[in-house]
């Protein structure tokens, strides 16, 4: 018996979510009184996993796996789980891990719970809390199969250090021709900017900003905070901002530590996408805007006056705390 965790890397370097899922895996392993094995795929230096409670690392290095390929990656994780006799397999909620998880679950004949936000409330029966109804509720879900697959929500557990031995072993899963039926032609990625998925802080603008020409201050605020920029649905529908920034029920979910909403009314579909952000700040000229009910901090005021002031004050704050 063991807990297996897939620790995702990109160009050899672990993503932050890898440390979060490892931290979570350690907590689950403690509950089950067992050890944590991590599988890495083409990661250059696995020693970093030691700090997060990983007892053993299976390093799969294989040129065929240089580009992400869901079927082959899922097969590698499945083979690792079988080799380690894993009863619980844990993945993150990155786009790639969400692609993999159901394939891994079917491969292992394992029940799968996604969007999990806490360690199991009980391990017999094995019960986890996860978000449902697009963050409008939680469900306490029992996984009844022998092997369990968990998809951990981003930022739900955080990083917890636990030093461990992290013995390294190389791991050579085998593949069939069908595992490589999806061929990547091109990748179009904004590498210079923080993405909504990875951001600790997200600065988001709505229709209250009046037009795309006014996004300079949103971007400047984001830059001061090291934040990603986002927007409400009408803003992307109007073409003021790219679709990839659209946040909400029909757009992207945001699970950042801080979400700043400027000139966004706070419609239920928008809130559904940001409910799992920890701290919400709202700037809106209308004191009746529904967003104030969902916010932790609010400023009733004109964005065109408040945001420049906020940028200035944050710059002062940064200079003092540098």
């Amino acid at each position: 018996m063991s807990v297996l965790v897939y620790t995702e890397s990109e160009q050899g370097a672990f993503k932050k979510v890898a440390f979060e899922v490892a931290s979570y895996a350690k907590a689950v392993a403690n509950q089950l009184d067992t050890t944590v094995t991590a599988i890495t795929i083409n990661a250059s230096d696995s020693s970093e996993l030691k700090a997060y409670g990983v007892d053993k690392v299976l390093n799969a290095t294989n040129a065929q796996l240089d580009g992400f390929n869901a079927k082959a990656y899922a097969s590698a994780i499945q083979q690792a789980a079988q080799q380690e006799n894993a009863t619980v397999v844990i993945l993150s909620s990155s786009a790639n891990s969400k692609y993999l998880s159901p394939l891994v679950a079917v491969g292992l004949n394992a029940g799968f719970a996604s969007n999990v936000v806490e360690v199991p409330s009980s391990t017999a029966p094995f019960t986890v809390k996860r978000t449902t109804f697009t963050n409008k509720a939680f469900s306490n879900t029992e996984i009844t199969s022998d092997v369990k697959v968990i998809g951990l929500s981003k930022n739900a557990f955080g990083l917890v250090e636990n030093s461990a031995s992290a013995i390294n072993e190389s791991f050579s899963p085998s593949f069939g021709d069908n595992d490589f039926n999806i061929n990547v032609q091109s990748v179009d990625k904004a590498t210079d900017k923080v993405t909504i998925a990875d951001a600790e802080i997200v600065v988001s603008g709505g229709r209250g900003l009046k037009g795309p020409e006014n996004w300079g201050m949103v971007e400047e605020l984001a830059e001061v905070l090291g934040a990603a920029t986002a927007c409400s649905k009408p803003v992307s529908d109007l073409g003021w901002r790219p679709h990839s920034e659209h946040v909400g029920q029909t757009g992207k979910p945001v699970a950042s530590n801080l979400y700043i909403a400027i000139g966004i009314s706070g419609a239920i579909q928008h809130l559904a996408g940001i409910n799992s952000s920890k701290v919400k700040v709202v700037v809106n000229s209308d004191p009746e805007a529904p967003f104030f009910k969902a916010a932790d901090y609010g400023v009733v005021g004109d964005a065109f006056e408040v945001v420049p002031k906020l940028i200035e004050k944050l710059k002062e704050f940064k200079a003092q705390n540098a």
Partner: protein
Amino acid sequence: MKILVCISHVPDTTSKINFTEGDTKFDTNGVQFVINPNDEFGLTRAMWFKEKQGASVDVVNVGGPETEPTLRKALAIGADSAIRVNAIATDGIFVAKQLASVIENGGYDLVIAGRESIDYNGGMVPGMIAGLTGANFVNTCINLEVDGTNATATREIDGGKETVTTSLPLIIGGQKGLVEESDLRIPNMRGIMMARKKPLTVVEPTSGEAQTKDVTFQKPAEKGSVKLVDADNIDELVSLLHNEAKVI
């Protein structure tokens, strides 16, 4: 090309979410049900294939008789026939097994499912049917072209997008982007009349056990009220974010 679109029957996005029977059941009282938004994009893309390249389009739902109006709506939008697997959709794998059986019996070239449904948000059914049938699979698909048996798909990745090529039979987990929102269709009177005559077949479920069970539900804790900061005192906001919220 033979296309199957998986249709999830979900509460309308503005629905208030409540639970009954000791927080063990979703309270459908007063809730309006709709085609899952991610599936609606897929259905419209299927219509595009039908009209531009020629294809037959079936829709399928795993659910009780109460989901039939949602399937009829898909027929009114233009699907040729509907299948309802007569079973309560207990969990992702159970649904996926029913769908896999429909897919295998129907010999579909392309299966379009939504990336996730907006009720239980499992995000697992498309991947699971791919796992069960062995078909090629592209998740979070935002564009799809098919030429003969070759497919080119674009999928959303963290921080960008990726274009891939593959071949049919193919399963996609689709979302907004497959078509523009302005291209989504509202059934017109003619469509609604025609839908009444189109076949809606009810099939009994094949075996397949659930592996998960939602035991209880809970709503997020009530939020404390918002702390308002005066627009002339933005210093205070910065200090609150640093000292109290500890997020900067």
